[in-house]
């Protein structure tokens, strides 16, 4: 056979098997990766998130408000957390992302109800991420229709039994009233793109030197670990900022994403995310023995970043343990910050709770990188 010889072909097959068997990390990845990913993402991802944080502004307490609230609880979508006392507190809770919903009962709610004056219940929703709140909103509408029927039946003589419901729900979608998903996706994509390119580019940097043999030369020269690591990431910081600008321009001009907040803050936070990801990349690079391993580790970091950060699936739909993992990842916090700045006009005070975790992450990973980078060939 001129074009295909079975024994020649088999020799290639055998050689490939032998080489895969030699590469322990790849072998481990082949076995463990599907298991880790299935259990991690299979259990964690939930597109119908429940237990959304809900605050209540109660001007008065009554039988009716209590049963309304307990009906909300029973849907499973709402975790009633705090009773707030004023509208300004409600605004702050929504802006900082501490609450997805704020439900306000007006003063004299019970009295108006009994007089059939159709009191108005104000429901404010953080609509930056429309998919997170969509199902909860439809559940809310159902509750509204049925919740108070039984309570009102006791006092049936004052209520027109034909009226479908005796109070009005005013749903107020904040920040993204039209529920445009792109407003949520585009700023999120910024963090995803930065994470992918930054980590991938730097994860190859030291590994490449190792594979080409230039690392030995570099190590023989009088240069310290911190100089190599920080020196190698500088060009990528600039690359990252250019990417950042490109994405922001597209977001503004093509997708018409609102830019409510300060652009300087956007860049400062983006710089922080770029740094955190470059640290991850350089640490992977110090650990990996060859470029293939570096790529595998990059994906090992990148997949949870995409799936558990709240970018692709609602963060609050995930079980607690998955939220803990998500909260370690810088992308999770960056997504909240960037949406907060662009869509809600957040300033430093509101975003700080999500800024320090990125700083802490970057610092920890940098120390790990310096620790793993060996200044000798031992």
């Amino acid at each position, binding site marked *: 056979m001129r074009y295909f010889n079975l024994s020649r072909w088999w020799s290639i097959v055998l050689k490939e098997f032998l080489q895969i068997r030699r590469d322990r990390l790849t072998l481990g990845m082949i076995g463990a990766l599907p298991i880790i990913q299935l259990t991690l993402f299979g259990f964690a991802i939930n597109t119908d998130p429940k237990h959304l944080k809900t605050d209540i502004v109660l001007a008065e307490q009554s039988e009716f408000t209590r049963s309304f609230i307990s009906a909300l609880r029973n849907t499973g979508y709402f975790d009633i957390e705090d009773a707030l006392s004023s509208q300004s507190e409600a605004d702050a809770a929504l802006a900082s992302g501490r609450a997805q919903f704020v439900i306000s009962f007006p003063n004299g709610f019970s009295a108006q109800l009994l007089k059939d004056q159709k009191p108005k219940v104000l429901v404010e929703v953080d609509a930056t991420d429309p998919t997170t709140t969509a199902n909860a909103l439809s559940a809310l509408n159902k509750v509204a229709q049925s919740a108070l029927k039984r309570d009102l039946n006791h006092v049936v003589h004052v209520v027109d039994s034909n009226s479908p419901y005796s109070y009005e729900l005013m749903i107020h979608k904040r920040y993204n009233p039209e529920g445009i998903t792109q407003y949520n996706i585009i700023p999120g994509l910024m963090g995803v793109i930065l994470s992918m390119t930054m980590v991938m580019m730097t994860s190859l940097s030291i590994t490449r030197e190792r594979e080409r043999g230039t690392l*030995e030369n570099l190590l023989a*020269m009088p*240069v310290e670990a911190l100089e190599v690591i920080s020196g190698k990431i500088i060009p990528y910081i600039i690359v990252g900022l250019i990417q950042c600008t490109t994405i922001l321009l597209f977001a503004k001009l093509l997708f018409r994403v609102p830019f409510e907040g300060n652009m300087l803050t956007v860049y400062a936070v983006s710089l922080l995310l770029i740094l955190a990801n470059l640290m991850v990349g350089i640490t992977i690079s110090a650990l990996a023995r060859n470029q293939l391993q570096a790529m595998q580790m990059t994906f090992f970091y990148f997949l949870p970043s995409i799936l558990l950060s709240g970018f692709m699936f609602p963060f609050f739909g995930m079980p607690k343990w998955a939220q803990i993992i998500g909260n370690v990842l810088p992308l999770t916090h960056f997504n909240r910050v960037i949406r907060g700045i662009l869509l809600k006009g957040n300033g430093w005070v509101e975003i700080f709770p999500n800024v320090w975790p990125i700083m802490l992450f970057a610092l920890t990973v940098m120390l790990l990188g310096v620790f793993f980078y060996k200044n*000798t060939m031992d």
Partner: protein
Amino acid sequence: MTTADYAVTVEGLNKHFGAHHAVKNLSMQIRQGEIFGFLGPNGSGKTTSIRMMCGLLTPDSGSGTCLGYDIIRQRAEVKRRVGYMTQRFSYWEDLSIRENLDFVARLYQVPNRKAVVDETLEELQLTSRAKQLAGSLSGGWKQRLALAASLLHKPKLLLLDEPTAGVDPTARRIFWEELHQLAAKGISILVSTHYMDEAERCHRLAYISYGELLCQGTSAEMIQQRQLTTWQITGRHLVQLNRTLEACPGVEQVVAFGTALHVSGTQAELLRDTVEQHATREGYDAKIIDTSLEDVFINLMKTSEGAFN
């Protein structure tokens, strides 16, 4: 001699890689301004020894100094003052020749960097090709570039790990002329090699096998130490004779050199009898010659193999 007269002194160096004992109790000295040849088969521990001397590897035990600095505790000082040329070309192939030199000069904080780089390019006769990528150079040019780059910071000691492997004879000759010029300027040079002609160009030599230093001294001293008698035998059917002689008393090694056999052994009388019986009487021409360095190295290699197998 005091330690100040030595560029390198190491004492009882050991290095393990897992279960493999790569370097065993290595002790050696390299004098100021001499070219010291480091010989031994592949995998004998030459590269590991050199890496320990320039601070690239930490010895498991033992001590040493390089240009007066401790090779374990004062690595940064050692690295600043030593020029090291790796076995494989290890400059950046995706940088141009000038960019490589410029990078190295900056890293070593060479004063008057631009002038020094220009001068180096001039000496290398690469000024016209300065913008060419280092990866596009031929083997001989790569090796000259590597040597020039490792000399940019004017080191007092050069460690060269098989610098001429895979380089053509002319380029090797030019390279060795450069080494002798450097040595004449007072630079000490440790060079590992497999080539006999190169070994003979060194002032002093050491032979290492299976991580153990077997022999060191000038080439004359090494030849004398082994006390070998060597016969040169010429004639027909040397292949058959080779096989016969190998099993005979007094013969430690038979090596074919073109149209002649070199038969060597330490027991001169026994060897003479054997040669007379099997060669002279069978019509071969046989005469005693001076034992060459190559005969000695082959002998060293054979005896160390015997001891370990």
